[in-house]
C-alpha cells in the first residue's frame, strides 16, 4: 500500500472522466431522471412513498456498478493495467485508487439524487436526511466495489455487461421492492438476508419512515461497509500480475 500511488491513480481516473463531459453529465443526472420517472408513474397513488427510498438505493447502485466495471475492464484491455503492474504499482493501490475516484463521483451523484427525490419529487423523509444520505452514498460505493470485483472476472465487454444481470438483478428482485422480503418463500428470504442491497433498501426505508432507531440503521450501514471493504480486498487479491 502506498498513498502516493493510490491518490495518483484516483486523480488520474478523475482526470480521464473530466475530459469526457457527456459521461460526467450522465453519471450525475441519470439516477435523478429515473427517480423522477418513477415518481411520475405513481403520481396519482401513494406508492412512491413506499418505493421511493428503494429507488435511491437502486439507480446509483446500478450506474456505479456499470461505469466502474467497464472502466477497469477498459484498462485491462488497453494494456495500461499490464504496464502499471510491471511498474511498482500495488494491486491494492490500483483498486483503491479506482474506488476513491468513483466514490467521490458517487457522493455527488447521490447528493443530487437524494435532493431531487426529496425536494423535487416530494419524497417524504421522516428520519434524518443525513443518515439517508450516508446510507445512499454507501450504497453507491457498494455498486463501485462490486463493479471492481466483477471486472476482475470478466475478459470482455460482453461478459462485464452480463455480470450486471447476474450480480445486480437478483439483488433487486430479492431486495423487497416487488414484495416485502418477509413474504418471500423461506429459501429466498434467507438468501435475501445476505444480499448487500437488501441492507441498503431496508435502511433507506427505515430512515424514510423513521421506523427504526439510529443504531439499527447504523448496523445496516456497517454491513454495507463490510461488503465494500470485502469486495475491494477480494478485487485486489484476484488481480494478477502474471497472465496466461
Amino acid at each position, binding site marked *: 500500500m502506498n498513498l502516493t500511488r493510490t491518490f*495518483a491513480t484516483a*486523480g*488520474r481516473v478523475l482526470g*480521464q472522466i473530466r*475530459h*469526457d463531459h457527456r459521461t460526467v453529465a450522465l453519471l450525475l443526472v441519470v439516477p435523478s431522471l429515473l427517480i423522477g420517472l418513477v415518481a411520475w408513474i405513481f403520481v396519482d397513488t401513494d406508492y412512491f412513498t413506499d418505493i421511493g427510498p428503494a429507488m435511491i438505493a437502486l439507480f446509483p447502485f446500478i450506474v456505479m456498478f456499470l461505469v466502474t466495471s467497464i472502466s477497469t475492464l477498459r484498462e485491462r484491455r488497453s494494456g*495500461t493495467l499490464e504496464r502499471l503492474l*510491471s*511498474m511498482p504499482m500495488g494491486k491494492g493501490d490500483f483498486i483503491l485508487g479506482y474506488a476513491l475516484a468513483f466514490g467521490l463521483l458517487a457522493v455527488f451523484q447521490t447528493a443530487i439524487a437524494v435532493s431531487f427525490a426529496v425536494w423535487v419529487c416530494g419524497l417524504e423523509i421522516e428520519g434524518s436526511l443525513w443518515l439517508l444520505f450516508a446510507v445512499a452514498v454507501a450504497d453507491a460505493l457498494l455498486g463501485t466495489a462490486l463493479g471492481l470485483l466483477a471486472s476482475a472476472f470478466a475478459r470482455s465487454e460482453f461478459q462485464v455487461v452480463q455480470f450486471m444481470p447476474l450480480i445486480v438483478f437478483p439483488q433487486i428482485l430479492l431486495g423487497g421492492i416487488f414484495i416485502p422480503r418477509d413474504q418471500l418463500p423461506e429459501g429466498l428470504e434467507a438468501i435475501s438476508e445476505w444480499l448487500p442491497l437488501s441492507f441498503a433498501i431496508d435502511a433507506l426505508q427505515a430512515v424514510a419512515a423513521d421506523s427504526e432507531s439510529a443504531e439499527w440503521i447504523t448496523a445496516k450501514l456497517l454491513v454495507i461497509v463490510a461488503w465494500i471493504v470485502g469486495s475491494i480486498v477480494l478485487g485486489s487479491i484476484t488481480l494478477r500480475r502474471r497472465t496466461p
Partner: protein
Amino acid sequence: MIQHMMNNSDAASGAAIIVQDLTVVRGGAPVLDRLSLAVPRGRIIGLLGPSGSGKTTLMRAIVGVQVVKSGTIEVLGLPAGSRALRTRMGYVTQQASVYDDLSVRQNLAYFRRIIGAPASDIDRVIERTELGPVAGRLVGSLSGGQRSRVSLAAALLGAPEVLVLDEPTVGLDPVLRVELWALFRSLADDGATLLISSHVMDEAKRCDRLLLLRDGALLADDTVQGVLQVTATDDVEQAFLRLIERDEPDLRPTRETKRRTER
C-alpha cells in the same frame, strides 16, 4: 569446478538477461519450448522473427507479466518479475498502452508518480522522444506513431537499466524510424540494455546482436556480422531463410554470457 562456478558469477555481471530452459504454454500449445539465451548489458539486441514466433511471449516473460510453465529468467541478477526490478525495467507493449483521454503530459505525470521518478523526468522524456509540440494534446487525438512514442516516453521515465520494446517502430515513417534508432543508440551508449523486437528484417542491421526466433526456438544468437558470415549473405532476410534451410541454428553467445548459458 569451483573455478568454473566463480566464472559463472563473473559472467552474470556481463549479462543483463539470462533465460534458461524457458517453456511457456498458451492456449494448450507450447509457444516457447526450453528456450535458453543471454542478453549482454549495454547493447541493443534485436529480437527478430515472423509474427507468431513467440517474440511477445518471450518479452512478457522477461518483464514478468507472463505465466511461465518452467525454466528460469534472471534480469540484472534478480528473478524476472521481482519487485526490485519494477523500477529498473521499462516495457513498451506493441499496442500503445497509454490513456487516450489524457494529454501526453498528464499521462507521463501519472506514470512518473507511480515509478517515483523525479518531476524533471517528464520534460526529459518529452524532449528525447520529440513530443514537445504535442505535449498538451489528448493522446487520443494523436497519430499512431505519436501514440507509440508517448508509450515509449513513459517507459523511459526513471531511466531504466533494461528496456524491453515490442515492435516500437512499426508503422512509423522512415524519418521517424531513423530518429528512434538514434535514440535507442544513445540510450545504449548511456549504459542501458535494449531488447527490441521487430518483424522488419531491415532493422536488424541497426542492432549489436540478433536473436532470430522461429516457432519458439532460436535460429540464431549472434552478432549481425556473425549471422551474415555464417549464412554467406549480406541480407538478414536471406540469412533467416538459409538458417531455416540448413536446419542448424547459429548459436554463438558473447564471451561474457557464454559460460553461463552453456552451464
